[in-house]
């Protein structure tokens, strides 16, 4: 086999999608590194601790939801239209339960880790408030965004299987950190 040609083929197939994901990640990074966000990390000890879990679990929840939608379409179990469908509604509700539930767990975990280590931490209600608010906002955008994009691409003749990974990473990065910041502001005002 021609190894060089094979390397170029694999490279060309993936470089576009990785670039899109890179842009989403850079935007998220710019928000994280911004002065207001750094101030939030100083103000709420524990926020930096929960950041990797918060960013990484979304891929699992919404990636699985997207994969399920895509398999369902391919298998003819659901149809690409926005009408009441018990399977679709169940999958949407389950993603909300998983996405919002795990956000609360992450807030509690990060508080518990700092308590166990005897380190300074923000109050439990602050950390859980932040993860809950950002979890709710993120799940609304990602669940409905994915339904729209997966159905849209399927109708358009594209295989959603190839698009879910990059869609989830990009939407997740962009909205995840923006909503995390928004949640910090909301919790700061309310608590």
């Amino acid at each position, binding site marked *: 086999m021609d190894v060089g040609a094979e390397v170029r083929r694999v490279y060309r197939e993936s470089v576009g999608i990785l670039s899109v*994901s890179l842009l989403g990640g*850079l935007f998220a990074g710019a928000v994280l*590194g911004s002065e207001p966000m750094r101030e939030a990390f100083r103000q709420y000890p524990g926020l930096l601790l929960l950041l990797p879990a918060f960013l990484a679990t979304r891929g699992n929840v919404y990636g699985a939801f997207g994969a399920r939608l895509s398999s369902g379409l391919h298998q003819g179990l659901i149809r690409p239209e926005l009408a009441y469908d018990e399977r679709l509604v169940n999958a949407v509700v389950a993603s909300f339960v*998983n996405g919002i539930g795990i956000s609360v767990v992450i807030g509690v975990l990060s508080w518990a880790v700092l308590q166990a280590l005897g380190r300074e931490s923000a109050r439990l209600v602050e950390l859980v408030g932040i993860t809950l608010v950002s979890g709710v906002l993120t799940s609304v955008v990602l669940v409905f965004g994915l339904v729209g994009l997966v159905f849209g691409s399927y109708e358009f003749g594209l295989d959603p299987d190839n698009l879910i990974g990059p869609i989830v990473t990009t939407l997740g990065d962009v909205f995840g950190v923006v909503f995390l910041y928004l949640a910090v502001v909301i919790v700061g005002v309310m608590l």
Partner: protein
Amino acid sequence: MTEPAAADTGGEGLGTWRTRTIVATMFPLLVVLSVLEMGSGYVLESLEATYLDNPTLLVLVPVMIGMGGNLGAIFSARLSTRLHLGTLSFAPRDEALWANVAAIMCLATTVFAALGVAAWVVGRTIASPMGFADLVVISLVSGLLLAALAVCISVAATYLSYRRGLDPDDTTIPVVTNVCDILGVIVLSAVATLVL
């Protein structure tokens, strides 16, 4: 990204499309992953001073968390497809295997070099600038290390799934993406500590 075992709906029933079934299958896994991610968060929190003093390093964090998993997922999907087609050998002289490894390392070089340059530009606009060379070195070295780890973990996970008679499509990608998510921040922090 954890992909649940493909919807195996028995006949007319809702099968795996019940809310309760989906939550019961996924939630315990999510909790375990979040606990593991705390290890990564702990590193970030411990190096709080370094990250908050060099905000440009924070710009790298989301890409470091996600990109290793993306590269691992691309590589694993290829390994797994070749396994199903019966064309994969785990022999060290398998040319197609090395072609895929080379392609992944080229992709990693492109992405993490671009990340270093772009983060430097972003860093200048949001905070005090950080040395250009330092940043590109940190981004490239941690990115290439992460890509190499992603390749090793993918090969190991595919081989183990194959030996145990599991379908690597269901096992490898979730394992690889999650392990890389966890390692991303740890590798970045280790490299940044060495360079700075």
